[in-house]
């Protein structure tokens, strides 16, 4: 019978039906970080349990790490304590940990793929909702809470229930100045922030087929913002080419066997889906959020809807029926697990090159990992940002959720390449976030207001 990737991978990892009625699912890769793991290790100790498969868990620090100076001890006493606790837990239970003193450190959803830990056909769990990112490789990747982190540590399993699968086809060529971020913001705008509840999203179509792994990760990353339990793309030649030669991917004869297995777990051509949605790529514009959830967005040439949610308008201080373009910004942030990869930095650099950040704007460029930073520096991209007036920072989650010193102040408006525009998300209880692509953030940083990046692209010869 023709099956989807979701069902094939689910069935391969299904251990048994629990007496509670839930499914016991084996987790192939467990990623942990400093914020959602300390209480899980405490629970393991309290019960006298062991970590069942320590070699299947990998740790890093990303959420609380400062990006201005990463020298230890961190100035923030609590950030230092959380790091020390993670170090102690990993040492005690034999778990591999990547700290800022190693080249492998970075945002957990950037380093997993970069190290080749993330592979097709796996089940992946992490105490972070953006775990859906790893679905770009054809894995079932789910965000979990701390008690579930404890479960995975203790048993390498989760008690879960299967979800339905919605196939989302995006077809056609994206226009210049339109990126993966615009595609996923458009999908969420169309299906709503609750539209994915009860579903995993399978993304495909000619647009997705033509995308790089970085772009597919941006799409899958924000599946959770659409309410979906997971999001994935079927593995293909692009996936295999990305993975070949990475630190933890198989080599030699094992590589060929791996590719054969990876091909076999892709959805069958005639698989049936619980729902199908199709989008037309050429109709997608550079997209900007105007409200307090990622579904509240418009194309940059559009106006804020006439029927816009009054609570969102009141919080943002915006009026219905006004253009989003020209909205003044105070801060520009490029980074995060959504858009902190090398291709994001390149796309933004292309806009920034030869320009200056507007005088009233504070602009941050925060690479997603140390390796991304190093690659960008090798290409001289850091200098492009520094010359323009951006701050070039160390790797971490930074101003996406502001658990480190990078925060908005008061009612500042931030053009942000991150994933959430929730009330207070960027560290100020009254701060305001406009989500957009890294190139659009770069354009806004230079213009000092929301601008149409397509006009700036025309000024730069390709």
């Amino acid at each position, binding site marked *: 019978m023709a099956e989807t990737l979701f069902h094939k991978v689910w069935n*391969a*990892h*299904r*251990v*048994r039906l629990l*007496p*509670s*009625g*839930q499914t*016991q699912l*084996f987790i*192939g890769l467990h990623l942990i970080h400093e*914020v*959602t793991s*300390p209480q899980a290790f405490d629970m393991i100790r309290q*019960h006298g*349990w062991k970590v*069942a*498969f320590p070699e299947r868990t990998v740790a890093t620090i990303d*959420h609380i790490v400062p990006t201005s100076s990463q020298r230890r001890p961190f100035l923030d006493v609590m950030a230092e*304590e*959380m790091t020390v606790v993670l170090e102690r837990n990993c040492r005690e239970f034999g778990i591999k940990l990547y700290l800022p003193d190693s080249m492998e450190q970075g945002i957990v959803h950037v380093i997993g793929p970069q190290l080749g830990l993330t*592979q097709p*056909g*796996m089940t992946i769990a992490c105490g*972070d*909702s953006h*775990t859906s990112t790893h679905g770009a490789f054809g894995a079932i990747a789910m*965000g*979990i*809470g*701390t*008690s*579930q982190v404890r*479960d995975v540590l*203790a*048993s390498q*399993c989760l008690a*879960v229930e299967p*979800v339905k699968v919605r196939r989302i086809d995006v077809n056609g060529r994206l226009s210049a100045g339109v990126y993966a971020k615009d595609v996923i913001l458009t999908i969420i705008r169309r299906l709503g*922030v*609750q539209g994915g*509840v*009860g579903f995993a999203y399978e993304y495909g179509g000619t647009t997705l087929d033509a995308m790089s792994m970085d772009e597919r990760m941006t799409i899958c990353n924000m599946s959770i*913002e659409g*309410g979906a*339990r997971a999001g994935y793309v079927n593995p293909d030649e692009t996936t295999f080419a990305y993975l070949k030669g990475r630190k933890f991917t*198989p080599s030699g004869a094992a*590589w060929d*066997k*791996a590719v054969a*297995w990876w091909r076999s777990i892709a959805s069958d051509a005639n698989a049936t889906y619980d729902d199908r949605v199709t989008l037309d790529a050429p109709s997608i514009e550079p997209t900007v959020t105007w409200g307090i959830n990622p579904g509240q967005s418009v194309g940059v040439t559009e106006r804020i809807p006439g029927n816009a949610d009054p*609570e969102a308008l009141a919080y943002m201080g915006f009026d219905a029926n006004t253009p989003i373009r020209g909205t003044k910004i105070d801060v520009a942030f490029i980074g995060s697990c959504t858009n902190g990869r090398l291709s994001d930095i390149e796309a933004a650099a292309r806009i920034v090159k030869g320009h200056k950040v507007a005088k009233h704007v504070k602009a941050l460029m925060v690479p997603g990992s140390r390796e991304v930073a190093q690659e960008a520096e090798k290409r001289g991209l850091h200098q492009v940002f520094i010359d323009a007036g951006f701050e070039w920072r160390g790797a971490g989650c930074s101003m996406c*959720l*502001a658990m480190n010193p990078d925060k908005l102040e008061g009612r500042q408006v931030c053009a942000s390449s991150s994933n*959430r525009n*929730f009330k*207070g*998300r960027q560290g100020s*209880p009254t701060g305001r976030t406009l989500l957009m692509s890294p190139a659009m953030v770069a354009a806004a940083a230079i213009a000092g207001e929301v601008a149409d990046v397509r006009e700036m692209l025309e000024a730069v010869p390709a």
Partner: protein
Amino acid sequence: MSRILSVSGRGIPLRGNDIDTDRIMPARFLKVVSFDGLEKHLFEDDRRTNREQHPFSDMRYNDASILVVNANFGCGSSREHAPQGIVRAGIKAIIGESFSEIFLGNSAVLGLPCFTADHNSIDRLQSLIEKTPDVTIDANVQTGEITAGSLKFTASLPTALRDAFVQGKWDPTAMLLDKFEEVRSVGGRLPYVSGF
């Protein structure tokens, strides 16, 4: 682990759709290595910045144990700190139009049932609590029946979670470890675990 057959107590109505976990527990309060004391920071920014008084700052709902919310409650970040704060504030059940799946799972593991019902029933229950905050709400986990004064409607829980509460099996670690040889055998059959 105890069986959870029903929850009774006074209610607290919290109106609004898409209330995310950043609002329930702002990120700066995640800079901790324990869940102790998180209840102090529940909805802290909403309570400070709302123009109207927030229900969690309203003395009338002080002893409430049943939270009544609207759609997509708990969306966004997977932080268990959000339901931990809710449980530590004395909430023993939530009744709402819908919940984010991660929030629902995190709550279940803490023994916090999240019932769902249609918009009208929820709205009527919220209005009733607003009018008479001392009304007792009874939520039956087995049947899904919700009663409050003369108001009566049927809510639901995902079947597996309902059964887990009723059987006292909502904290799954022991079950997951119960037949560990099966875990080893599934792991052993996976090509990437054995090195292809």
